[in-house]
């Protein structure tokens, strides 16, 4: 494995009043990956980002970015980190151009109008460069925040709920832009409520709840390990018991003996293949069926199931 671009060990944050927002968090982020941090509201996602980016003072633990201890070498490390916040927080009276020029300068980078133009064009904001930010639509304001975060050409970019409140079309547009950033070698950590977003873009997924990381894995491996396929087979005639020909399949009889429900597989196509074998076995056993409905579990199903399990435990 590559040396992590960001390494978090034992990170803890307890707010005044005793709320423990982060509880002994360990996390490694690999260079060049898109890492999605999923969790319900109040899980600690924004606090985790805040601790890395300097808005939150950790109570304990250590953060290393680019091999540098963030508490000691914060200047050089922070110069290489960008942040797109969740809130639409920007100086509404500034023009787009002045706002991103300020961001670049603030992070200690020399003026580079050509680079800023490139960033604005890539975000379809070039035509709006002289517009006051307050005159832009919500989606454009969010893109301005992305442009500001990219202005100093960070190697590690945090996107805190980047598509919150953004319409479907613009969300897909942003996914493309995030993918383009990854192509340029930027490591991206994003938090999101839209699990579809993580499913679409992330290389790895971390699930956080109550300030604790419950699981970190490759998205494909997580789907493989925790994903399932559910098939509902409507029968032409009631079936009182599972015949011996179908005994090896993970099935049950439901809905007044008029349905066979299959639950199994691995979320990576294995379940569908087994459902095909099941239907062949049913044909051989002369069990007629009228319809077949197959559903692979999504990352969302896994996420909800995992959180439900932890809650029950």
């Amino acid at each position: 494995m590559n040396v992590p671009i960001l390494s978090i060990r034992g990170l803890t944050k307890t707010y005044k009043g005793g709320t423990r927002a982060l509880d002994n968090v360990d996390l490694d982020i690999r260079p060049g990956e898109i890492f999605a941090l999923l969790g319900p509201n109040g899980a600690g996602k924004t606090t985790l980002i805040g601790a890395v980016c300097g808005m939150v003072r950790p109570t304990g633990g250590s953060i290393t970015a680019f091999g540098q201890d963030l508490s000691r070498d914060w200047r050089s490390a922070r110069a290489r980190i960008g942040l797109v916040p969740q809130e639409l927080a920007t100086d509404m009276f500034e023009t787009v151009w002045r706002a991103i020029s300020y961001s670049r300068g603030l992070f200690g980078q020399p003026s580079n109008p050509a680079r800023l133009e490139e960033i604005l064009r890539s975000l379809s904001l070039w035509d709006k460069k002289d517009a006051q930010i307050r005159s832009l639509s919500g989606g454009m304001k969010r893109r301005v925040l992305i442009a500001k975060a990219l202005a100093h050409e960070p190697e590690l970019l945090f996107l805190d709920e980047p598509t919150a409140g953004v319409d479907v079309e613009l969300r897909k547009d942003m996914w493309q832009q995030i993918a383009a950033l990854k192509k340029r070698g930027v490591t991206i950590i994003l938090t999101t409520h839209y699990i579809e977003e993580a499913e679409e873009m992330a290389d790895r997924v971390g699930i956080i709840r109550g300030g604790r990381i419950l699981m970190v894995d490759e998205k494909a491996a997580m789907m493989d390990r925790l994903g399932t396929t559910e098939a509902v087979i409507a029968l032409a005639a009631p079936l009182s018991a599972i015949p011996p020909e179908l005994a090896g399949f993970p099935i049950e009889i439901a809905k007044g003996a008029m349905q066979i429900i299959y639950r199994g597989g691995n979320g990576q196509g294995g379940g569908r293949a087994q459902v095909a074998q099941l239907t062949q076995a049913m044909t051989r056993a002369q069990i007629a069926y009228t319809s077949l409905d197959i559903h692979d579990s999504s990352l969302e199903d896994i996420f909800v199931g995992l959180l439900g399990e932890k809650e029950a435990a």
Partner: protein
Amino acid sequence: MAFNIRSAYAIYRREMGRAFRTAFQSILSPVLTTSLYFVVFGTVIGARMEPVGGVPYGAFIIPGLLMLTLLGETTSNASFGIYMPRFTGTIYELLSAPVGVAETLAGFVGAAATKGLILAAIILGTATFFVDYEIKYPVLAAFYIMLVASSFALFGFILGIWADSFEKLGIIPLLILTPLTFLGGTFYSIRDLPAPWDAVALANPIAFLVSGLRFSFYGVADVPIGVSLGLTLGFLALCILVITVIFRTGWRLRE
């Protein structure tokens, strides 16, 4: 790591841009107010007043009026400059940037102090239309104005971090600085007050500032210039110390 001049300049330029964007409020408004003081107290009433310490009354009140505007405006500008990002949430960018206390102060406080100096120059220029005056020690006056502007810009910065509402932001300049400046010898010499009020007036630190500036203008003062300078430098050092502690602890800045 060394002082990051680009970061400091970015903050400074943005703050100056904000001032020019709101030129009426930040420059024209205080100039108009001060001009009214010159008209009423300097020209109309001043013509009937005896000279104070050998200085014609109209000219006598210039340093005090200048101090009145300088203290109010630099404090307000600096406090507003840091309070607004806290209020709107844009402070995230400053906190996540590779920027320390030195760059932040150079940017925010430097801009507030610059605005104060521009204002002072405009007010002094305006005063020439209403009263005749000459500055006896111009270098000392310029230094003293810069010192006071920087000190109160730092004070305003602390105020902007302390305040958690717009009301609190306005309380100190309106309810403390302005009355203290009025009572600090802006329109009269403290030495002319009857006992024990002349001694009581010296409990007001602004009296030392007005006196110091008046000395640099006309060579007359209620307290020795060394005391005024020492007090102002001490106040400057105290503000820097407080801000350093604020940045180290993250008080009201970082959660």
